[in-house]
């Protein structure tokens, strides 16, 4: 008996002893630990850095867009482990005896010592966050990808991400999960961009020296963004560092230079970057007389200022101006963008933040030409002015509330052509063709809530956007009946300042992530998106002379429901990642042209458009290696995309122009030595759909073609390999650094079709002819920095 009481007593005592820490914990005071994680060298904030409590029962968080974090922890000694890709992981220890706000600085990894991970965030981050279908790439990766004509290009990298395909050879446009190029929202410091191409799409407008990183949302777009159906590409401009430095590159057909520095330490930092091509310097060597005297070049300039007013207030200014010029014989075209953005970041407290933005974008083109009888000019322009207020509040660790308001006003001048001189028909000089101006106004309220559940194994994110879209005058409003015939031939004149049509829309968003094991997460998401602006693309062969128009009484907003689900795993101590993701998109009010549309400078464009539904679905596989001398990724996507539009293809389902079932992207980086690195990529995509005739018959002494289905044929499959070698010259670990980059675009000279034409032999036999743009394109660039 005595022994039993002893056992019971010891057992009770054991459990009491166990409970004491628990009860002590329950009774323990907690405090908020907040702070900001920054680069120890240049003071740049680090978004997505992991702040983890060492021995803290898996308590961790990520820094937000302002580099800030919040944790609620028990009073006492706290040891934090802070990590961020490309930086040394560091530990910080402090005593938490009250609410504290702190700054944590990380040291960049020496570039010469360790291969960096290929993406701008760690595998662990990607595994845990609630969002899915996101790819974030930093400027370092962009610089390592092989180049065309020696010019690193952000959008060429985007086109190699899983689920993304180039719209056509040489184009900067891209398809995301079967969507069309205009269904991608491209933001540069929150300013909307409409055409991001230089030189017919061979290059994008983004100077990699002026870009910090980019994030591509392929469907699970956060509630604070909207306006396009397929994707959001958010490009964040680089900021100047406190220390003055110069960086540049001189290549065969282009050169660039950037300078950055700070005033009063890092209180005011600046960055200025410019580049220009000079391909036309070599054209006089051409045999073709037309080409000899041609002009072809572009330039762009980037500027960025950051003013740290105090620890709670930052002001940013971003400026961009770029222009292309192409002239041959008696014709030429100039086009380009201008962008201005100003941001104010304000911290009300360590948990409550605000960002205010004002942006302006202008894209225009000017085409001039002359013949024996006349001179003419064709101009078009689109302008976008926007403002947004974003608030974020962190009521507790792992809980984030975001809400805000955005407003954008767009001015569209789709086209104006003026004939000067006497035309062949005898019509006088004053004749012009003008498409009436259009205006759109979009206002949005949004909120989203993100929080962790079930011991932080699950992250739940949900949100809602409430939109109102308005049309405004001045414009000429054309309405069509159910057969797309004009109701009033002359249209209705709407005066300036009159708002004559509006649409409301709701866009719910939902995402969930479950950490099944420390190396496996399961995710699912749903998003509804609306689009009030539409690109009338004449052809898939890429052109700067395209037309954007807003929704209107007869052009309903496009809409999409997208569901995605996937599994994400990290392998071998997070050195490898594997993921599989499935998606399904249901689209409404997608538009296409009727057969034989009147496209060029036709004001009553509503009569030429047809509307219907679309579907896209597919599966994406990704395998990625993050560390080591050999890094990179391999992805395979199978997807289909169809449309059903009454009045097109006899109302039967047909392939959308972006239906390309198989897509493989291989991107590899290999560090041969601390001085030499090699990059290789290979892309493959099923050929682009195209409509070709299958039969013919006589009428009026001509052979009239007969077609079966729209887009029933395909161009040849697209594939291409690029390679580059980067050699660091001079002494290592010196401030003056220089390197040589040798790139070969299209290594094995694949003739990928850009367009297909019909030709006739002297015998009268018809045949097909493809136009291709590139064979093997080598380039060499010398880069330097100090």
């Amino acid at each position, binding site marked *: 008996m005595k022994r039993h009481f002893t056992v019971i007593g010891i057992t009770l005592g054991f459990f009491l002893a166990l409970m004491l820490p628990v009860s002590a914990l329950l009774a323990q005071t907690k405090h908020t630990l907040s702070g900001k994680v920054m680069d120890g060298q240049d003071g740049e904030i680090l978004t997505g850095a992991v702040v983890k409590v060492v021995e803290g029962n898996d308590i961790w968080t990520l820094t937000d867009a302002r580099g800030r974090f919040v944790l609620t922890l028990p009073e006492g000694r706290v040891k934090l482990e802070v990590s961020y890709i490309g930086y040394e992981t560091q530990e910080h220890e402090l005593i938490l005896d009250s609410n504290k706000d702190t700054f944590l600085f990380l040291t960049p990894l020496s570039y010469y010592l360790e291969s960096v991970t290929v993406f701008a965030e760690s595998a662990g981050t990607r595994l845990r966050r609630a969002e899915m279908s996101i790819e974030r790439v930093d400027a370092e990766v962009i610089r390592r990808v092989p180049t065309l004509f020696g010019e690193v290009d952000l959008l060429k990298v985007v086109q190699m991400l899983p689920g993304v395909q180039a719209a056509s050879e040489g184009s900067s446009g891209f398809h995301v999960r079967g969507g069309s190029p205009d269904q991608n929202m491209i933001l540069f410091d929150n300013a909307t961009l409409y055409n991001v191409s230089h030189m017919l799409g061979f290059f994008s407008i983004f100077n990699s020296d002026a870009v910090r990183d980019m994030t591509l949302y392929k469907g699970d777009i956060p509630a604070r963004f909207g306006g396009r159906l397929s994707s959001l590409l958010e490009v964040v401009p680089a900021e100047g560092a406190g220390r003055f430095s110069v960086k540049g590159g001189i290549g065969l057909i282009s050169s660039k230079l950037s300078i950055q520095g700070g005033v009063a330490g890092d209180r005011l930092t600046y960055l200025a970057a410019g580049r220009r091509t000079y391909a036309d310097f070599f054209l006089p060597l051409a045999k*073709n007389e*037309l080409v000899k005297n041609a002009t072809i070049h572009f330039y762009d300039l980037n500027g960025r200022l950051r003013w740290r007013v105090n620890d709670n207030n930052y002001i940013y200014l971003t400026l961009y101006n770029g222009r292309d010029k192409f002239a041959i*014989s008696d*014709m030429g075209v100039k086009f380009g963008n201008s962008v201005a953005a100003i941001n104010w970041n304000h911290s009300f407290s360590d948990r409550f933040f605000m960002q205010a933005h004002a942006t302006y974008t202008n894209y225009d083109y000017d*085409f001039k*030409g002359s*013949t024996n009888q*006349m001179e*003419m000019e*064709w101009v078009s322009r689109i302008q976008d002015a926007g403002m947004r207020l974003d608030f974020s509040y962190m009521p507790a660790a792992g809980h984030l509330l975001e809400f805000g308001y955005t407003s954008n006003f767009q001015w569209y001048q789709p086209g104006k*052509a003026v*004939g000067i001189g*006497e*035309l*062949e*028909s*005898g*019509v006088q000089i004053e*004749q012009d*063709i003008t498409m009436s101006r259009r205006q759109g106004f979009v206002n949005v309220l949004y909120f989203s809530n993100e929080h962790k559940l079930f011991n932080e194994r699950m992250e739940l994110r949900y949100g809602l956007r409430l939109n109102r879209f308005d049309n405004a005058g001045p414009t000429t409003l054309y309405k069509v009946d159910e057969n797309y015939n004009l109701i009033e031939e002359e249209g209705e004149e709407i005066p300036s300042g009159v708002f004559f049509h509006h649409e409301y829309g709701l866009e719910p968003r939902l995402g969930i992530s479950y950490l099944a094991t420390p190396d496996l997460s399961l995710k699912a998401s749903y998003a509804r998106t609306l689009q009030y602006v539409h690109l009338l693309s004449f*052809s898939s*062969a890429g*052109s700067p*002379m395209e037309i954007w128009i807003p929704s209107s009484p007869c052009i309903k907003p496009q809409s999409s429901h997208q569901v995605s689900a996937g599994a994400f795993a990290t392998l071998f101590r997070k050195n490898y990642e594997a993921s599989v993701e499935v998606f399904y998109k249901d689209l409404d009010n997608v538009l296409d042209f*009727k*057969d*034989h*549309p009147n*496209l*060029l400078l036709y004001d009553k464009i509503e009569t030429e458009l047809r509307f219907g539904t679309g579907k896209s679905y597919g599966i994406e596989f990704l395998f990625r290696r993050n560390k080591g001398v050999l890094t990179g990724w391999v992805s395979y996507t199978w997807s289909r995309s169809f449309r059903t539009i009454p009045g097109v293809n006899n109302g039967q389902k047909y392939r959308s122009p972006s239906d390309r079932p198989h897509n493989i992207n291989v991107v590899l980086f290999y560090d041969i030595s601390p001085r030499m690195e090699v990059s290789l990529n290979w892309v493959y995509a099923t050929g682009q759909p195209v*409509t*070709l*005739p*299958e039969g*013919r*018959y*006589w*009428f*009026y*002494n001509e*052979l*009239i073609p*007969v*077609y*079966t289905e729209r887009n029933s044929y395909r161009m040849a499959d697209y594939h291409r390999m690029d390679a580059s070698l980067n050699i660091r010259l001079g002494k290592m670990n010196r401030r003056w650094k220089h390197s040589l980059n040798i790139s070969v675009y299209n290594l094995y000279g694949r*003739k990928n*079709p850009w*367009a297909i*034409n019909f*030709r006739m032999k002297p015998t*009268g*036999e018809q*045949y*097909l*002819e*493809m*136009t*291709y*743009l590139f*064979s093997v394109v080598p380039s060499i660039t010398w880069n330097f920095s100090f």
Partner: protein
Amino acid sequence: MKYFKIINTLLWLATLTGGVTGCTEPIELIGDDMESRLVITGTLSTEPGYQIIEISSTVPYFGTDLPENIDAAKVVLNGRELTRDAPGIYTTGENFAAVEGETYVLEVWMDYDGDGQQEYYSATTTVPYVHVLESLSVKSLVPGAVDIPFVLLAGFQDTPGDDYYGAALWINSDLYSNRILRYYVHSLNDYSQDGSFIRYPIPEWIITGSLVWDNGETYDLYSGDVLTVELQTLSEEYYRFLQEAKIEKNQHFPLFSGPRGNVTGNISGGALGIFGSYAVSRKSVILPKCPGLPERQ
């Protein structure tokens, strides 16, 4: 179409952009052969003469075969059977003239698919009322001069409402508009002139010393040559067909070409082709003596 030349010139100039940036190479078309389809074409004119209905079959587009005519079992126009004059060619009498305002029904019976059963094909057209070509003159494109290049100015009274116009050109007794690419289809984009007297420069033919002719040849012009314009008021379905056929046959510009598609016909039963009508009015003008045109010897 008064904006036609602006747009056409813009397209040609812009095409140079694609031309100097790309290389070309012939390619093979890989795909299933399309089954041949029945084609029925025919037009009725208010001008007395043989009116022809032609029946044929499609052939592969990229082959060397040319379409050939085929016979029907019976071809009837407003209840009256037409005469077979040649394989696939069915005609009215030689003095047949379509009547303005009348509706004509074409009916064709034939076993096209070879299943032993005759299929039935039909179409209707309502003959439009004529718009008389009241004046025709030549105007020099050189300000203040009487010299080539000339444009033809046609004057006629439009009637209120939708009217569909086309025009054909004769040079002396030769039909210059013997192909759809040399036939003029007027575009309906000037409603300010609806119901007015229209004095219109026809942009389709610029009269110079020589014009493009078939097989790469040229047609030389001389002062004293007679140019005859036939103004055709077209039935709506025929107008649409001509307009779309002309688009399909015109040069396609890769940077600006919209989606391709079948020319819209009006034959029921799944056949391709068109049954249309038009009213005719002609006027002639003589090319004046001028420095740019030689005289006939």
